[in-house]
């Protein structure tokens, strides 16, 4: 609500400069971390983007979190996955697990590559980042279910999901699946790499979960009119 009335805020500078806080006045703008956004010349920008740039010169900007960086290796999806895996604030451990997972995926794929014959070698994907992204894409559900009350009863109604919600569900399913349904003596990176490779090949428990959600939505398609948005 406060963000919607940010148009009513007059030009203002804060008396105390906020650094690394997480609650900011809605007057503050988000930081732009990628270098490519600044290297574009003036001619390439549209009118709105020029306005945005001028606005950024005048308004105060939030401090960037320590999770983002301007390096070429910074990936927002992977950062989000690491944050979701993190427990009790142990980011070091979560990042370690993530790097070990990617390394493990690469090892397995390179092994497969060297064992395969000449014709099959081109089809094998070795880049762990593309495998991660493709596996996550394969796990994202298309429609979700919402519990809507009508006439005293609650119905599971199929609804369209936002991109953020779909990405969150895919990551959540992946992590819970690896934590709960695997043999307890395997390391998390091993479990994750197995599950990610399976999802890349469109098999595995996470894909099953996605299909079950789709089947439930299809079964409840009669209630789709209970939505009002």
């Amino acid at each position: 609500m406060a963000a919607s009335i940010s148009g009513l805020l007059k030009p203002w500078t804060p008396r105390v400069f906020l650094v690394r806080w997480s609650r900011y006045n809605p007057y503050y703008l988000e930081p732009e971390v990628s270098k490519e956004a600044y290297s574009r010349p003036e001619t390439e920008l549209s009118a709105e983007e020029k306005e945005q740039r001028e606005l950024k010169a005048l308004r105060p900007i939030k401090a960037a979190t320590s999770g983002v960086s301007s390096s070429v290796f910074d990936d927002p999806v992977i950062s989000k996955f690491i944050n979701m895996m993190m427990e009790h604030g142990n980011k070091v451990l979560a990042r370690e697990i993530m790097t070990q997972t990617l390394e493990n995926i690469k090892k397995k794929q390179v092994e497969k590559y060297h064992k395969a014959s000449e014709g099959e070698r081109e089809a094998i994907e070795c880049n762990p980042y593309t495998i991660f992204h493709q596996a996550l894409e394969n796990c994202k559900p298309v429609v979700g279910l919402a519990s809507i009350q009508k006439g005293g009863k609650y119905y599971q109604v199929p609804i369209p999901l936002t991109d953020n919600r779909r990405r969150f569900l895919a990551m959540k399913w992946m992590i819970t699946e690896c934590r709960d349904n695997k043999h307890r003596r395997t390391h998390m990176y091993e479990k994750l790499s197995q599950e990610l490779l399976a999802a890349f090949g469109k098999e595995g428990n996470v894909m099953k979960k996605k299909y079950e959600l789709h089947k439930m939505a299809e079964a409840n398609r009669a209630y789709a009119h209970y939505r009002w948005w």
Partner: protein
Amino acid sequence: MATQGGIAFQEKVSRLLRGQNGKPVLKPNRALVLKDAVANRKPKKGEASCITEMSVLMACWKQNNFVDTLCSNEINSFYMCVEKAQADAKNKAAQSNIQGGRLPPKQATALLKRYPNLCKEI
């Protein structure tokens, strides 16, 4: 507006409270003071959007046993429909705000809270 007819308005109110022939017209149980907030409006219940696209998608799923690669066209059209519906909802909200000539209740409350009704001298 209040300053123009201010004194006449106060006289009218005191006449209503005192009443003609000793019988007051108004017997307020609370002070006659305006609140610093506006009542919220009930949002209008719309219809579900993108039902046709969803039903087409689900028919395709039923046919192809829920394999997503075979239904990619339907999935894309569903996503585009959803995006359009969201954009439409945003534009409609913005338009109705501008056309109505009134502030929406939340913004009106925020503004009133900034310039509250002064009921005490201190």
